[in-house]
């Protein structure tokens, strides 16, 4: 059967039109941000430079694409339409739809897959980075502050993980076989404990003499934390809202494991620098506890470099996820994420190039946006 095609101009128009919820949301957010620029602190200052604006726009674009992917994508990312196998961009389906970027070797719509891929990437990458930050901060603070034996042991462990080539680590940690063993669950159990411990200590050190504030905060932290904890680690959420598939838990844990030593090193270095300042000495003279000083005196003053690092690290985590997808580790083979799509299409580059380009450009532009954002943030925080 001969397929009918729409022209290049119509493809461009069609793509622009499909993204309408993103343009709308982007317009509203940008208009609000520029109007109230002065009151928005560091975020507002981003709009002073071109690099900053470009970074914000690209990141928000992918964020909104992930949120509205159900509306944007015209087809189900897993649905196969047999006549559309390897269709070129702009091919029309028999019932009148258009495969804007063509079909892949399994006759799925490449455009819809790219849009839905953003959802997977934008959930896992920031969440894994957040957990890596938590682990790195909770371990890096005491290592930098106390020094001595704690520092030597923790630094040795961090260097141990960093000496592993990432790819080897993934091949060992993310295999189908390992999900039969308790290792991923044990690691998840340890890693997901860190945020709970972190917030409990955070509130306890601040409000330990004001029990009226302390108890509600601790209660909320523990209830929320343990709820999510049991949902994620044991898949035993009593309400059945939070659940994660074993293979997703596995890649999540592996990515956190691979990137937390980097955070640890940065936090440790920052703490060693900041602990020589006068306000830390003043707090020590006041008789504050070490954990109060670390969490309420040192950490807020280390936030600038940490925010910049977090931006870069989300980008790096996206690259890691893509690497996992590229080697077919962890994610399901039909998953629409960008790494898997690149793997599938790069094997067929000799025959068809159109399935390879959308995921490649998507991944590159998202990481580029984060890097530009980090660069602008660094420039702004150096200015102060």
């Amino acid at each position, binding site marked *: 059967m001969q397929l009918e095609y729409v022209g290049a101009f119509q493809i461009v128009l069609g793509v622009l039109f499909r993204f309408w919820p993103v343009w709308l949301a982007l317009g509203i957010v940008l208009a609000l941000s520029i109007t109230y620029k002065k009151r928005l602190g560091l975020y507002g200052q981003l709009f002073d430079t071109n*690099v900053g604006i470009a970074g914000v726009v690209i990141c928000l674009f992918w964020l909104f694409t992930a949120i509205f992917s159900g509306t944007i994508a015209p087809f189900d990312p897993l649905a196969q339409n047999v006549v559309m196998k390897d269709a070129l961009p702009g091919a029309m389906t028999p019932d009148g739809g258009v495969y804007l970027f063509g079909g892949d070797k399994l006759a799925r719509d490449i455009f819809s897959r790219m849009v839905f891929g953003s959802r997977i990437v934008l959930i896992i990458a920031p969440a894994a980075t957040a957990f890596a930050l938590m682990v790195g901060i909770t371990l890096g603070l005491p290592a930098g502050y106390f020094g001595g034996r704690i520092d030597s042991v923790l630094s*040795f462990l961090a*260097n*141990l993980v*960093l*000496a*592993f*080539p*990432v*790819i*080897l680590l993934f*091949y*060992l*940690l993310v*295999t*189908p*076989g*390992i999900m*039969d*063993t308790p*290792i991923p669950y044990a690691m998840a159990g340890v890693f997901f404990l860190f945020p709970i411990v972190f917030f409990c200590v955070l509130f306890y050190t601040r409000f330990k003499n004001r029990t009226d504030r302390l108890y509600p905060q601790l209660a909320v932290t523990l209830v929320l934390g343990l709820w999510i904890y049991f949902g994620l680690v044991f898949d035993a959420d009593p309400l059945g809202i939070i659940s994660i598939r074993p293979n997703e838990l596995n890649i999540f844990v592996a990515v956190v494991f691979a990137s937390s030593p980097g955070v640890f090193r940065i936090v440790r270095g920052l703490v060693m620098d900041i602990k020589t300042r006068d306000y830390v000495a003043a707090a020590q003279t006041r008789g504050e506890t070490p954990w109060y000083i670390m969490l309420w005196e040192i950490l807020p003053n280390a936030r600038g470099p940490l925010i910049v690092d977090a931006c870069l690290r989300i*980008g790096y985590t996206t*690259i890691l996820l*893509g*690497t996992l997808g*590229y*080697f077919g580790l962890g994610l399901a083979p039909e998953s629409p994420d960008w*790494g898997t799509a*690149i*793997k599938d*299409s*790069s094997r067929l*580059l*000799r025959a068809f*190039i159109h399935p*390879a*380009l959308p995921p*490649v450009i998507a*991944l*590159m532009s998202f*990481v*580029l946006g*984060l*890097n*530009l954002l980090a*660069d602008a943030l660094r420039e702004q925080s150096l200015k102060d």
Partner: protein
Amino acid sequence: MLAFIVRRLGTMALTMLCLTLVVFFMVNLEPNLRKLSISQLDMRSSDEHIESWLQRNGYRDNFFVRYGRWLGVVEKQPNMNAEGQPVPRFSYCNEPAEPHYGGILQGDFGCSTKFKTTVSAKLFPALGATGILMFWVMVVMVPISLLIGILAGMREGSRTDRTLSVASITTTATPEYVSGVIFTVVFASWLGWLNGSAASATGQGITFYNFTLPVMTMAIYGIGYIARMTRASMVEVMTQQYIRTARLKGLSFGAVVVKHALRNALIAPFTVIMLQFPWLLTGVVIVEVMFRYQGFGYTLVEAAGNNDIDLLLGCSLVSVAVVLSTQLISDVGYAYLNPRIRVQ
């Protein structure tokens, strides 16, 4: 300095011991052993068959005894068949018929079950092939990135600086599997100038036609990072007092940059370049798989995919050794290059 190096070498040995123990533990997990035995027997083997195979080949011995054997501190016992005759575990590796110490410490890397040869026979040629790739990547990457960094950092905030900075941010946002696809599309599919596969490089030798794409793909990811570090270092040097003095005594801008700034600005990038090696290792794996070049990365993926225990352990030992020794070289080199640290 000597005491420092000795202490670092001690830490290195300890790290390698810990890491190989971890890898040894991971490859000997029950599902991985099953995968190995199924690949050695056949798909339809019964559970008893698999179990007896594992038992016979010593995979059920005590974990630490087996690690000791791999390391070469515990004696290896030969396999005995029903008549009490020694038989080698794998027919393609010569195994002595009497008890012996044969491990890493004796220089015996073991036996590759995937490639059906000894690990040394597979691993070292692969390392050589990767060495050639790495050499060309370095030859391309280092001069280009230093040049970009110096040009950008020479006049901070200028148009050149802005353009080059954005360009280098872009390359750091382009991992190998992305740039590889883009380059293949442009240079192999559209223009047809270059070969999209380096498979022929192993057999027929390296040519510009089959080797440019892998080298380009690997170099591009590192260029941005090194260039940015060089730029930061150059910017800092250009604000120093002695640069102003040199300018005030009437030297031309070019002479100041070449004679006074360059040397001091290149200390920091040296460390960065050395610390790039762990990243390059990941890049090597991606690029070699993508362009089908039979090197270290390709071997590692094959070993990991088939749970080839000895080969995988050999690969991890080599890569960890590379990472740790480049760290050592970067520390020593930094101290040597920077007089302020050398005197201390």
